[in-house]
């Protein structure tokens, strides 16, 4: 009898605890059954990709696909190891990383400054905002030939086109972030004696930060997209060049290696932004751990 009531209490305790956890976690795993507990562990995140890999290998083995159209995972893996060992992949990756890094820095600096000017001052908004929306709708890749004409086929054109593409997600999100800062907090800051710079520093910028980070996430994605496009059109180095070159040489397995590198880069940038969020947005209740 007592055992039954004990069990019951445990369940109640867990359920009560459960209701205080974030909804996503509750849905992912209530912790009531073994099944749920397994799926709530982080390791299971790798299951999906592993299954995909298995299906891929199976398709190649059963379907006798030509390595030209679909190389097997093991083939791709060997090729990848080879490309790492002879330095081709690493040097291409470093070249591309440098271009993306410089372009991002440039784009974030310019997009961020323009967003602040535009969102914080009426004159800035009048002058900057319409222009930004005009440029925003131009397809970036259509500008690529123009950038080549202006900046040549060297590093500049590639860095600048990445910077150009990055400016817009940063601008739009930071602008919206600043404008969506709670008016009540701004009023509170004013009556607490904060001046214009104090308000910007203590109220407006921290308030706009979450949306700025959303912009940064988008910018990271678009920067790779644009860089590869630029490298495919005119370059003698970099990941985009590797893909085009592999196409010309009918090395489908190399193309697969580079594509996998891109997926890993996407994962890495996502983790990077998550870390930045965890570090800068620790005040948000979803990150607060008691």
């Amino acid at each position, binding site marked *: 009898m007592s055992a039954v009531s004990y069990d019951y209490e445990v369940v109640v305790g867990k359920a009560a605890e459960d209701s205080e956890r974030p909804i996503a976690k509750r849905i992912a795993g209530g912790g009531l059954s073994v099944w749920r507990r397994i799926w709530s562990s982080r390791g299971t995140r790798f299951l999906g990709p592993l299954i995909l890999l298995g299906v891929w290998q199976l398709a190649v083995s059963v379907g006798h696909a030509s390595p030209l159209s679909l190389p097997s995972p093991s083939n791709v893996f060997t090729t990848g190891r080879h490309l790492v060992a002879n330095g081709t992949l690493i040097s291409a990756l470093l070249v591309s990383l440098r271009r993306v890094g410089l372009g991002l820095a440039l784009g974030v600096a310019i997009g961020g400054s323009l967003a602040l000017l535009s969102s914080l001052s009426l004159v800035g908004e009048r002058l900057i905002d319409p222009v930004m929306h005009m440029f925003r709708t131009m397809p970036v890749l259509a500008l690529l030939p123009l950038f080549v004409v202006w900046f040549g086929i060297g590093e500049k054109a590639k860095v600048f086109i990445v910077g150009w593409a990055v400016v817009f997600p940063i601008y739009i999100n930071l602008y919206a972030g600043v404008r969506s800062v709670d008016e*009540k*907090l701004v*009023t*509170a*800051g*004013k*009556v*607490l*004696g*904060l001046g214009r710079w*104090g308000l910007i520093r*203590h*109220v407006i910028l*921290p*308030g706009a*930060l979450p949306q700025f980070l959303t912009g940064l996430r988008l910018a990271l994605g678009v920067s790779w997209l644009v860089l590869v496009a630029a490298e495919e059109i005119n370059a003698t180095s970099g990941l985009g060049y590797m893909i085009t070159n592999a196409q010309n040489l009918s090395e489908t397995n190399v193309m697969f290696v580079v594509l996998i590198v891109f997926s890993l880069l996407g994962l890495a940038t996502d983790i990077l932004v998550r870390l930045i969020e965890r570090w800068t*947005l*620790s*005040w*948000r*209740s979803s990150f*607060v751990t*008691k």
Partner: protein
Amino acid sequence: MALELRDEVATGSEPAVTQPSAPLRALTGDTAYAGDPAGAAGSARAGEPVVKIRGYGRRFGDRVVLEGVDLDLADGEVAALLGASGSGKSTLLRALCGIDHGADGHVTVPKERAVVFQDHRLLPWKKVWRNVLIGVKGSKADALAALQEVGIAGRADAWPGTLSGGESQRVALARAFIRRPRLLLLDEPFGALDALTRLRMHGLLRELCARHNPATLLVTHDVDEAITLADRILVISDGRISLDHRVGDDASARSGTAALALRARLLSELGVNPNHRPHQNHEKR
């Protein structure tokens, strides 16, 4: 005529009585008051009102919310401002905050003023103690002392998002009192709290006001809260102050039949007749 909001510039946080006395000026906007050191030194003269409002008016479009309001508040006086919603009580408080720039009249308020809103308005990205120090030059020790005073020093390093409503409002009070305000403006500060927490906060506020002695304007729609806390009860209706009642000093004025009589009077002034059946209970406009 535009609203002239004048910040008195008092030197330091000396008690008002020790300030050299000089004629209080600037009531009707003759001289450049704030930039005049001789006038500034005299602003905290004992016996002079901390707040002077003359001919204050506010309209939004064609709708006149307040007109011809005159009001003085003395040092240490706790005045409750009652009014139905939309009566303009928060508008008047905003004018005293210095965040309303569309009004008429003359308002003189001290520079050392602090505001507590109904919602705590703590910056969620600053830890509690940093919130207390916003706009103030001070150390963490100063913030801790202020938090100690409101009984919440233990949460100094917490994020505001983890505080309960009552705790947040305590922090908001600490943030107000660390400024050593000569004028404390409270905009329905306990309106969002549960009944028990509200009672505790009433006790805390009385304690803090007794210790720091600011002139206090408490905007509320709670008649009982006004009777409990205020030395003086003002009722706004029809765009003006229609009642200015001083509550007696002895405790009996706030309890028993005296309080009941006052309550009934305030309610009828607010256009509420508690004896009416609900369907007859219309707000008087």
